[in-house]
């Protein structure tokens, strides 16, 4: 076992392939950034539907949330990559294919929009109605009330939960290797096939992700907490 342990913790292979592995890691961040942006926008949209006056729109919002929040992200990635282009292709009468990166961003963006929608909605509904009426009484149009009164408070309130969701989203980006987005995990399996040394490579990948997620989450949580406290007495 101690020989195996030494092999597992041997950083030499990892170091040797550092250039390509780093490039892979960059893809995790690209996917994360794009999917996070998509998830925030779609999530806000779905949340606004869910607090809408009209029942049909509320329904649409609920449907969006329940579908995507309950879908496993791997299933969603596969469905978006292999099924959605075919369906769209049928609709426009032409063969269609998504590049893996696009599929990954759409799928993860949709799944996490379901989570963000719930966070947004809880935040929006926690704003006392009186504050909104105060805005109306000042002659503020609803859109201005949304941007100036509601959302700034929602963002502050949802921050801790949003950080957790961002962490989950970043971790989920590792599965995009399964549709051949060349992320870190993808490169690790490539190098493994070449070198036939899974121990240091997979252990290294696990430790790398752990270090990134743990450090980033701790830092962001601390910063978010400080920001919240600065503004709220």
């Amino acid at each position, binding site marked *: 076992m101690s020989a195996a342990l030494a092999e597992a913790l041997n950083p030499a292979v990892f170091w040797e392939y550092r250039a390509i592995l780093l490039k892979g890691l960059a893809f995790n961040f690209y996917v994360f950034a794009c999917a996070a942006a998509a998830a925030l926008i779609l999530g806000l949209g779905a949340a606004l539907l869910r607090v809408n006056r009209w029942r049909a729109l509320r329904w649409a919002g609920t449907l969006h949330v329940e579908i995507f929040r309950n879908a496993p992200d791997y299933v969603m990635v596969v469905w978006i990559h292999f099924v959605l282009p075919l369906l769209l292709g049928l609709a426009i009468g032409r063969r269609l294919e998504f590049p893996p990166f696009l599929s990954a961003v759409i799928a993860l963006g949709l799944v996490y929009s379901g989570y963000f929608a719930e966070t947004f909605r809880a935040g929006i509904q926690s704003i006392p109605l009186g504050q909104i009426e105060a805005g109306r009484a000042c*002659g503020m149009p609803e859109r201005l009330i949304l941007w100036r009164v509601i959302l700034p408070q929602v963002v502050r309130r949802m921050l801790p939960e949003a950080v957790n969701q961002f962490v989950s989203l970043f971790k989920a980006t590792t599965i995009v290797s399964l549709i051949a987005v060349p992320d870190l995990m993808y490169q690790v399996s490539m190098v493994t096939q070449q070198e036939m040394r899974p121990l240091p490579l997979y252990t290294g990948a696990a430790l790398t992700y752990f270090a990134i997620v743990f450090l980033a989450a701790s830092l962001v949580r601390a910063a978010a907490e400080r920001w919240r406290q600065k503004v709220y007495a």
Partner: protein
Amino acid sequence: MSSIPAISVVDVHKSFGPLAVLKGVSFDVPRGSVVSMIGASGSGKSTLLRCINHLETPSAGEIYIDGEPMHFRVAGDGQRKPRPIAEINRLRRDLGMVFQQFNLWPHMTVLGNVVEAPRRVRGLKRSEAGELALECLRRVHLLDKAGEYPARLSGGQQQRVAIARALAMQPKAMLFDEATSSLDPELTDEVLAVMRDLARDGTTMIVVTHEMRFAREVSDRVLFLHNGLIEEAGAPEEVFGAPKSERCRQFLSKYLPKYVQ
């Protein structure tokens, strides 16, 4: 010109489903005058005030601000059409509203609360809006708190900020809905003092209140609301001194025992 009242309420009805809360209320508020509205809990005072600035839509009747109908407008063909929300928002700017629960925006500083509407709604420049806001804060004696967040203020201070926020719209009239009801007695006085100053400066005001002494002192006219109707109206000496209606007498006896013979 000066004969047009600042606010004119004409036969306003309001129902929530089967519950008729206002059953035909009419009164005028002449420019520069103070009208107090008293009445038991549930008599419809808040609902009436909220109808006036369209936080509730009246079921029937009309409210005129400076002669302009608030809810409907008369189209070219003489038909009444509900106003689009943008026009209602424009008319709302002429009415400042102060709520029982202050309803300050907690994520903005005191100055931010007061500057917000002049800047974003009336489109004043940052410097103009800032000056205006500071002037309003001076009137409520809170210049020194401009940089604080509302959570750090006492209830009385928060309510004075809310008054400043309403004043900053430079409204034609101010609506107060039980502005002191959620305040401790010591804090009530500082808010009433500000309201008294406003009345003295000739601000047009509708004041819903349970502070009978204050109502008697500052009002030009007092309305007693009962069950969605104006049961009694008159100068404060009349309503408080010699109420004609039995119900009004009963109501006042709870607040001002000495007025009952």
